[in-house]
Each structure stands twice: as structure tokens, then as C-alpha cells.
């Protein structure tokens, strides 16, 4: 399966499926203790196609039984009770599991002496905070698959922007881009700041079908994103695209026209949100009045700032489209005017002028 984007040549053929035994039960160990806002977990709860409850309650046919462990979603009161499955996995006693990381990974090595940027529970021996990095080092090599949820975990995101004090980065930067989990899958990246709820759920269930042995590995592009979700640009799915073609550009945010001159990066950003909407088809970005700030992209945010200015390439391309757009707009205007009138044969006079041929009449 490939998805061809007119301007995005990032797709690759997926690996071919092969016979493999599947698993009937799998645990998802979700850690949101990276540099993040936990917005990906929150976004996940907005998904309805399918919902996370559907997956956990076994309502999706063909999936293995899923045990989800996520701090926000846990009925546990917290502490060691909550950490038990993570500890078991770190000791190699809980298999198979999918490790989901939310948030960017700080660089602990830049800290001189003691201290930590972020931690997840305490070291049982010393009582000191156990760093996120320690957990990743223990869990990633033992994981059946590793999934990065959100742009922070995939490519570093906001917290890794220029001038940050923590030296943080995405998971593949931390583990190495050639990292392979036990299943042979590389890190599966689902970017988005935050994840579009359904994009994440869909990727997760593909990985789960793969775990069940009923699907090939999900097709990923060179930045390890699912191809079918990130293979096209925002522009290619934007309902303001025809304004662009007609060179009708908004000069401020009061306008329904194309937003490229007020900061939209849609023409060069890989994301399906304007097409898919945000949840249940509602919302989005340029389609509903928000400039695309490139939140799914590896270069986010620095490459897109300042957000509210026209992208550098936008001046040239929107200038080139101007004469063509002006002609098209005018011609379409004429045609539009024509099709906005009723044909002249509709009237209530005594003569039929519709061109009907009354062959049955003498």
C-alpha cells in the first residue's frame, strides 16, 4: 500500500507479510514522564473510532487481549502498586509488552553531580527518584514494540526548541534510528502536538493486529511515521486549497480564504488533520481558521517560527500562482454566474419552450 501525495514523496513500500505466530495477550506500558504536557494521553481519551475503552474491553475483533497501564487512566491509588508491572517488565518477568513513550527525552548527561530533569517513581534501594532515562534503558530492549506518542516523543517537539535547558530529544534520537524492538519494528512514530486521537488509535491497533499475527508490520516512512496517515500534506486535504489555486489569499484572520500569507505552512507539512477533522470530523486547523504551524513535523517548532508570518517559500509560490489564479478566478466567476441562473425555458406563459418533442401529438 502506498499513498501518493502530489508534493510529498516520502512514502515507501511496506515490508511484505510473512507467516508468524501471534500473541493472544499483550500489555501496554505507557510512560508519560517525558518532557510533555500529557496532552497525548488526554487526546487519546477523545478517540471514538475506535475508543480506548473498546480496545481494552476487547470489543475490536481480532486483537489480542490488551492490558493498558497508564498513570492517568489507572484505577490504582498510585506508587508501587501502580509501578508493579513496570518493575516486572524491567526484570524481564512480563512479556510481551508494548512500550509507549509520551514526552521528549531529556539529556541526563549534561547534569553535573546529582539531580534529574524528570523521574518516574523511586529507586527502591536508594529512595532517590528513578530517571525516565533509566526506565527507557531497561524497558526498550525488552519491549515487543516501542511507540512514540506525540511530537515531543517522536522528534523532540516544543520542549526541545532552541534555547532549552534540558538538552531533550525524540525517542529515536535517544535509542538510535536503527533501533529495533523484539518484533523487528523500529520505533513507531505517531507525531502531532498533540496526537490526533484517531491517528494514534489506528496506528496502535495496526501494531496490535501485527502482534496478533494477522497483519504485516505497519508501513512507515523514512521518519518512521505511518504512511497512510502522514503521506499527504495539509494543503492536499485543505478545503481552502481552491482559494490557493485561485490566488485568493486572506490578509488577516477574518477571511475564509487561503491562509498562506498569514502564516499557514500547509503546503509543505505532512498531516491529515484538515481532511480528517480533529474529533468526529469536527475542528482542525486551516479548514476552520487556524494556520498550520507544522506541529507534526521533525522541524517543529523552530523551523516554523514566527508562526504568524508568511512562510519564506510562500511569497514566491503565491506570487507565481497569482496571474494564473486571477484568470482562473475570473473564468470560474463567469461560469459560476451562468450556473447560478435558471434556464430561460422555465416560465408560466402559455407556450412550452423547454424543447420537448411532442411526438405523441398529432
Amino acid at each position, binding site marked *: 500500500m502506498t499513498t501518493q501525495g502530489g508534493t510529498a514523496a516520502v512514502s515507501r513500500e511496506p515490508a511484505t507479510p510473512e507467516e508468524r505466530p501471534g500473541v493472544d495477550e499483550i500489555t501496554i506500558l505507557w510512560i508519560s514522564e517525558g518532557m510533555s504536557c500529557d*496532552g497525548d494521553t488526554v487526546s487519546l481519551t477523545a478517540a471514538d473510532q475506535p475508543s480506548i475503552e473498546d480496545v481494552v474491553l476487547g470489543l475490536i475483533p481480532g486483537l489480542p487481549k490488551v492490558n493498558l497501564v497508564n498513570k*492517568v487512566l489507572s484505577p490504582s*491509588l498510585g506508587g*508501587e502498586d501502580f509501578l508493579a508491572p513496570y518493575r516486572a517488565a524491567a526484570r524481564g518477568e512480563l512479556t510481551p509488552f508494548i512500550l509507549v513513550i509520551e514526552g521528549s527525552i531529556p539529556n541526563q548527561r549534561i547534569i553535573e553531580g546529582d539531580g534529574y530533569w524528570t523521574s518516574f517513581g523511586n529507586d527502591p534501594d536508594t529512595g532517590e527518584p528513578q530517571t525516565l532515562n533509566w526506565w527507557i534503558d531497561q524497558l526498550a530492549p525488552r519491549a515487543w514494540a516501542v511507540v512514540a506518542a506525540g511530537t515531543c516523543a517522536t522528534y523532540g*517537539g516544543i520542549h526541545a526548541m532552541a*534555547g532549552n535547558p534540558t538538552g531533550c530529544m525524540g525517542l529515536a534520537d535517544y535509542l538510535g534510528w536503527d533501533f529495533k524492538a523484539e518484533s523487528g519494528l523500529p520505533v513507531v512514530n505517531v507525531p502531532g502536538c498533540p496526537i490526533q486521537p484517531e491517528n494514534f488509535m489506528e496506528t496502535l491497533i495496526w501494531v496490535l493486529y501485527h502482534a496478533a499475527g494477522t497483519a504485516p508490520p505497519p508501513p512507515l516512512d523514512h521518519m518512521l511515521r505511518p504512511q497512510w496517515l502522514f503521506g499527504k500534506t495539509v494543503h492536499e486535504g485543505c478545503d481552502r486549497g481552491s482559494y490557493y489555486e485561485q490566488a485568493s489569499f486572506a490578509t488577516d484572520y477574518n477571511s475564509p480564504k487561503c491562509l498562506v500569507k498569514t502564516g499557514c505552512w500547509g503546503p509543505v507539512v505532512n498531516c491529515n488533520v484538515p481532511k480528517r477533522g480533529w474529533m468526529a470530523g*469536527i475542528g482542525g486547523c486551516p479548514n476552520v481558521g487556524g494556520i498550520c504551524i507544522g506541529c507534526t513535523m521533525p522541524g517543529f517548532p523552530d523551523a516554523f517560527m514566527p508562526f504568524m508570518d508568511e512562510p519564506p517559500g510562500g511569497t514566491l509560490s503565491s506570487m507565481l500562482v497569482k496571474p494564473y489564479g486571477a484568470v482562473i478566478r475570473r473564468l470560474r466567476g463567469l461560469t459560476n454566474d451562468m450556473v447560478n441562473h435558471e434556464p430561460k425555458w422555465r416560465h408560466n406563459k402559455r407556450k412550452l419552450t423547454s424543447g420537448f418533442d411532442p411526438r405523441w401529438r398529432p
Partner: protein
Amino acid sequence: MTTTEARRAGRKPAQIVDMSWDPITRIIGNLGIYTKIDFANREVVECHSTSSLFRGYSVFMKGKDPRDAGFITSRICGICGDNHTTCSNYAQQMAYGVKPPPLAEHITNLGEAAEYMFDHTIFQDNLVFVDFCEAMVKATNPSVLARAERTEAPRGHLHGYRTIADIMRAFNPFEGEIYKQALKMSRITREMFCLMEGRHVHPSTLYPGGVGTMPQPTVFTDYLARLMRVIDFVKQAVALNDDVFDFFYQALPGYEEVGRRRILLACWGAWQNPDIVDYRYETMNHWGKAMYVTPGIIVDGQLVTNNLVDINLGLRILLGSSYYDDWTSEEPFVTHDPLGNPVDIRHPWNQTTLPHPQKRAFDHNYSWVMSPRWHHPETGQHLALDTGGGPLARLWSTALNGLVDTPYIKATGHSVRITLPHGEKLPETTLEWTIPQWSNTIERDRARPYFIAYAAAMALQFLEQAQTLVRAGETKVFENFQVPDEAIGCGFHEAVRGVLSHHLVIKNQKIANYHPYPPTPWNASPRDPYGTPGPYEDAVQGQPIFEENDPDTFKGVDIMRTVRSFDPCLPCGVHMYLGNGKTLTTTHTPTYGTDQG
């Protein structure tokens, strides 16, 4: 703080056990609670709250284009990112001297109303209520559950549950009716949010100067249709919550002491009135009081001030027991506010964030959170204000101020009256929230469903006003502006769980300094240099323990109820079973259990 004289008398020799919960579940963010519990006298004797995450927004925003601030600060919080964007835009609008068109204010207000409804519902019903559900009460207070089975629910005619235990069952994660309904409602209200602000969590259509949302009539119709679908749920939620909380006071006499602290509440106000607000600092006291939630600082039941200028000038960021170096030797960014009042070096406008990672030591530095305090000009004290989890302070301040008077909401000086129109099942209903006797765990939780009703009622008003504008053709939603070379600004707003301020300094058209203060640093702050504990610490420390379990099977439900009652910046979610229905086993192993009498 909560120890009563009655409990002081007849004390047994203490039997102290260390208990800790790190990470705390069903919240967002990295929060740990470390306590010492005296099991002989069944009370918490000491509490430390710690946060183990540093990201550094105020560091990496320096030198950036100030117009980017709202897009960046949204990413501070994965549940109320829109509150940050809104607050940032308020601060920027002050700095740029721009006033958005009225329709833009209504659209922002509608988005924020949907956010409050979404976030409070999912937090209360899917997170907080798990601590009050049948399974949890059975595991912690079986005798209370037995009593709940025998107790008729006084408001059963409104919500349809016969006994209190029936309500508790409906709150059981996953199977419970209310639990499931709340999840659905949290999706509908998020759709309402997306109609106004594009995306949830991080909105796409909010800009300084207004919004980009296309103000077609359809957007408002779609919002209204969804609002009316949840209006009866909102009325029922209030009735259900009242029944359960009243029952707890009856079933466990003394429960009012759980999580009780001195009344030290802060509210910065929410929802601008487009007819009055002009975003100028010089007129801030005037338009601040015109907000549809009235700002105020309340100490021991008295309103200390509702002037945003006083509130602003009293802000102090103390290092407390946090992992930062001091900045007082740096050059101040702002020496005087636009009215000529001096600005303290510890004020957010002058803060410089200097992270210094180090070992966690509870007798020294133990948190990545600093200690925001409010400097009381009369007493000279640095008050550890709390937000009551948001709704408690908002309702309290609005009620006491008595200024809000709209078709659906009336503040009376001692209460807030909220009128909701008839829905599918229930008739038009007027709910009244009255200022409670205590600032405690139950009242923090009780205020939440009332505030959901408040938000629904405000949404109705904003919808009507927005539709009137749209129908009159007044559809402008954005006002252009220039970024000045030098300027300062501040924004005051309410995030879902309480006070939110953004302070901005612009030099050479770039951000020279930027400091967002969300509610959680207020609530989760560690001990400050004066030794004053932060609100979580203060509320937990000294609270009685009602849980029937012994130290080795102890779950700490009373403590977790208290911490969660503040809505730790760490809102929403769904509870999931761990594996095959494994529930709630607890292994908080005591590290020592000596007699320390």
C-alpha cells in the same frame, strides 16, 4: 491545621509510619506525596509534596517572537492548553494595545465554557469519583458502604438512583452508568470546544487580536444542539454529588476535617465582558470586575481585594524548597507598573528561572515547583493561597462579590444562583450554591458540578449574544496590531483548576521575559523560606484518617481524596483495569514503624 481539640485530648503514644505515593495516579503531571502517619491516633502528622519534572518554558521562550507565546504556552498543559493560549493572548493584547472584536470574545468565552464543562466532568466523574465508588468504599470503609445500602438518596427523583450505594455503584470504573455517561459527555463537550477553538488540547484558531474561527451560524447551531444534549446530565450531576457528599458528613462524623485548611482562596476571574474590557492596565480594575467570574482574594471568609492591579502587585515567587538558584541579584526587567507603582524583584515580571538539578532532600530542596505566594499588604505575610481546585474559589469569590447578574446567573453576596432551561427529561431548574462552612476536601469536590452548571449557563448567554451579532452581520473576529519595540503585559484568567496568570516583557520586539503561573504551582508548592507549607501539604498534614485498614493494607484513600480534590493540574482520563480485572491492591510498605511517643 485540621487537628481538633477533641482529637488532641486522650492521645495515644504515636505509632508513626512513612507512607508515600509516587507517582500519584489519575492526575496529569509528575506528583509525589510523602507522609508520616500516626496510626495510633489515626492522623497524618507530616506531608511533603514533590514534583519531579522540569521543562523550562520561561527559559526557552526568551528571544522568541512574542506573537508565538500563545502557541508555545498552550503546550504547558495537556488538558487546559487553551486556558494558557487565552491567558497569553490577554497579556499580549495588553502589550500590543489591541482589543479584539466582540464576536471574538464570545467565541473565546464559548470555547472556555466548553473546556470547563469537559474537564470538570471527566475529572470529577472518571477520576475523583473512583475514590468514592462502591469498589473503593468497600475496600476502605466497608461499614460506610453497608450504611449507604440502607440510605435512600434524597434527590433520587432527579437522578433516578434509589440508594446512596446505587450512586456509588454507578461510579464504578467502566461498568458504572454515570462513569460511562460521563465519558460520552466529555466527548460531546470536547466537540463543542473544537467548534470554537479548532482542536482540543492545543487550540488552532486563537490569536492575539481575536480568533480565526469562521463565524458561520452553523458553528453556533452545532454548539447549541450539543449543549442541550448535556443539560440534563449537568442538573443530575449536581444532585448526585450533593447526595453523596451530604451522606459522607453523616456517615463519618468529623469528615469535614479531611483536607480542611484555613480559608485562603484565590480567583483571578474568567470570561471577559466584551462591552467593558479594553485590556489596558490602567483600567484593569474596572474591566476585571466586569468578568463573568469575579476575581478575589479571600482570607478567613473576608474579601481582601477584587482589584486586579492589587492582585498583580502582590504576586511573589519564592524559591522555597525548590531546585532553582535565586535571581535577586539580576537587573529587574520592570521597576514600576504602568500606573507608577513599584514592582518587586520577586514579581513574575522580574523573575529569572535558573534551574539547578540536585538531590531530593525533604529537609532541604525537594521539588521542581517554586512557591508562589501573595504578599498581604496589611499583615506583610506571604500567603499560601489555594485555588480550591478551581470551582470552590471561583464560586466563593463570585458569590461574595455579588457582582455577576445575568439572565442565567446571579451572585447574591452569600450564594450563586444558576438557572438552566428545560432539557429532554428535566424541567427548567434553578440551582443554588451557598458559601460553605469549610474549605475542605468535600466542599472542593462539591463545587465542581455546580461550576459545570455555571459554565453551561454562561455558554447559553454567550451563544445568544454571538448569534445576535452574527445575524446582524457583525462578523469581524480579528483586529490587526503592531508589536511594539518595548512593552509589558499581564493576563489574568482561570485555568480549569484555578488561577492562571501570564507576565510578559517585550524588548526589541522580542520576548525579554515571560512567566506563566498556572494553579498547580500555587497548590503543589513546597515549603517556602518562611517554613509555610504549600496547600496540598497543609491540607493533608494534620488531617484525620477514616480508612478502616491497618498500616499493611492501608490504601490512603482519605489522603488521595484530599490531594485529588484540588484537581492536581492533572486532570482527565479514563480508568482502566490493570490486566484481567485486577483491582486496587496496595503495597505501600512501611519503611519504619517505631513508637515515637
